[in-house]
């Protein structure tokens, strides 16, 4: 059964409904909308932030949570195929939230099970709930998403959040999207060819930073590099520091899906344009809204 495997599974209207629903949740006492349901969190790849935010979201909605993450996953699977593990989870739960290191794993799982699958990150491919968090943060800060200039900075090749964000923006009308990265970390051609809005690839953030409304910074995805030497060559190739931030518009915002390593100078945290902690705070309410959408409406 299709769940939320790619951001393409949601139309603009779907996304706006999720944003409006999330908005209502921000200051409201959670209701037990998923009471009696079991949410399984199948994190075949280690994660703290996403795992805990899904777990918190499910518990606030009154659902039971079963799951595993990281090393435990190896023991759960014991060499078992992904399909068989998914079939087991299908028997135990109403919704399967899955993270996996293989590209396309969530889509494959969704074809194996009749239960909705929520993709919590598949390899370097997609991470749709993060995109909902990103776009919701933009919407909260500007009041809208259309007609803004975005600057996506960093590892645009291996960061799944970039693929989902670029795809998610197709439902809106960005004025321009700058893709700022060293050449070896440029965005995938396959994704760029799909885009229906203007974009420009640039190498230097200083060249365009003054035009950007939303600066979206990504971590270099060390774990996705096949070649370690390639990683060594690019690992410190960009950094958001006070000098760069000074050139930004006064009302621009800086986002980052976190965790960060060294790509944002900690002194930037105090700048009022730094919105990544606010962005992280929307993880739980957005995921509550997603769980309700797939756990109640489609049950």
């Amino acid at each position, binding site marked *: 059964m299709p769940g939320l495997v790619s951001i393409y599974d949601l139309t603009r209207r779907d996304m706006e409904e999720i944003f409006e629903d999330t908005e209502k949740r921000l200051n409201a006492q959670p209701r037990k909308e998923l009471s009696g349901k079991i949410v399984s969190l199948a994190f075949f790849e280690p994660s703290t932030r996403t795992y805990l935010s899904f777990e918190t979201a499910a518990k606030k909605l009154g659902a039971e949570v079963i799951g595993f993450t990281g090393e435990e996953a190896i023991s759960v699977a014991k060499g078992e*195929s*992904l*399909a068989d593990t998914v079939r087991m989870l299908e028997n135990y739960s109403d919704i399967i939230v899955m993270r*996996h*290191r*293989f*590209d*396309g*794993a969530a*889509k*494959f799982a969704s074809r*194996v099970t009749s239960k909705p699958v929520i993709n919590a990150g*598949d*390899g*370097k*491919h997609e991470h749709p709930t993060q995109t909902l968090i990103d776009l919701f943060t933009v919407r909260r800060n500007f009041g809208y998403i259309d007609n803004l200039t975005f600057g996506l900075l960093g590892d645009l090749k291996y960061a799944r959040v970039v693929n989902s964000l670029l795809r998610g923006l197709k439902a809106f009308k960005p004025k321009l999207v700058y893709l700022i990265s060293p050449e070896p970390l440029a965005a*995938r*051609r*396959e*994704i760029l060819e799909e885009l229906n809005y203007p974009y420009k690839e640039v190498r230097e953030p200083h060249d365009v930073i003054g035009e950007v409304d939303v600066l979206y910074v990504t971590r270099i995805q060390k774990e996705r590099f*096949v070649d370690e030497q390639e990683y060594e060559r690019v690992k410190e190739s960009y950094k958001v520091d006070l000098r760069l931030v000074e050139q930004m518009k006064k009302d621009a915002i800086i986002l980052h899906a976190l965790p960060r390593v060294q790509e944002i100078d900690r002194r930037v945290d105090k700048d009022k344009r730094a919105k990544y902690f606010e962005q992280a705070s929307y993880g739980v309410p957005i995921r509550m809204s997603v769980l309700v959408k797939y756990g109640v409406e489609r049950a």
Partner: protein
Amino acid sequence: MSSATLTVSKIRNGTVIDHIPAGRSLAVLKVLGITGYEGLRIAILMNVESKKLGRKDIVKIEDKVVDEREASIISLIAPEATINIVRDFNVVEKRNLRLPETIKGLLKCPNPLCVTNNDPEALSEFVKVSEKPLRLRCVYCDTYLNEADVLRQVVGQ
């Protein structure tokens, strides 16, 4: 066609695959699983003149009817080929090849971290992006396959 008729007689029953890109007839036989030891009478014409292609290959196979699945594999490496089914020296069916919209199980995704390369049940699946030039997209990880990749995979070239 003059050079073809000069050297090869008509077949009574079987399949004539025409308009194969020059030099690819052996690859076509390979994807059909024909090694030469099956005992089938086969004529291979290579690099003969063609109005449409300049030069082309032709394969005539006696007593074998190429089926739909085989035809779709041929379409990957010889998209403009035509298949004529012959009975009693007459063409009884003329098939233009059409690249299928989806190709399942046949090709391998070039992305080593695609789920289809890592789970025994995850069968590869590609959708057609364009025919000319040939481009296919993995439905799981969105990686593209181009004509050179397909040729390499199908015929090991």
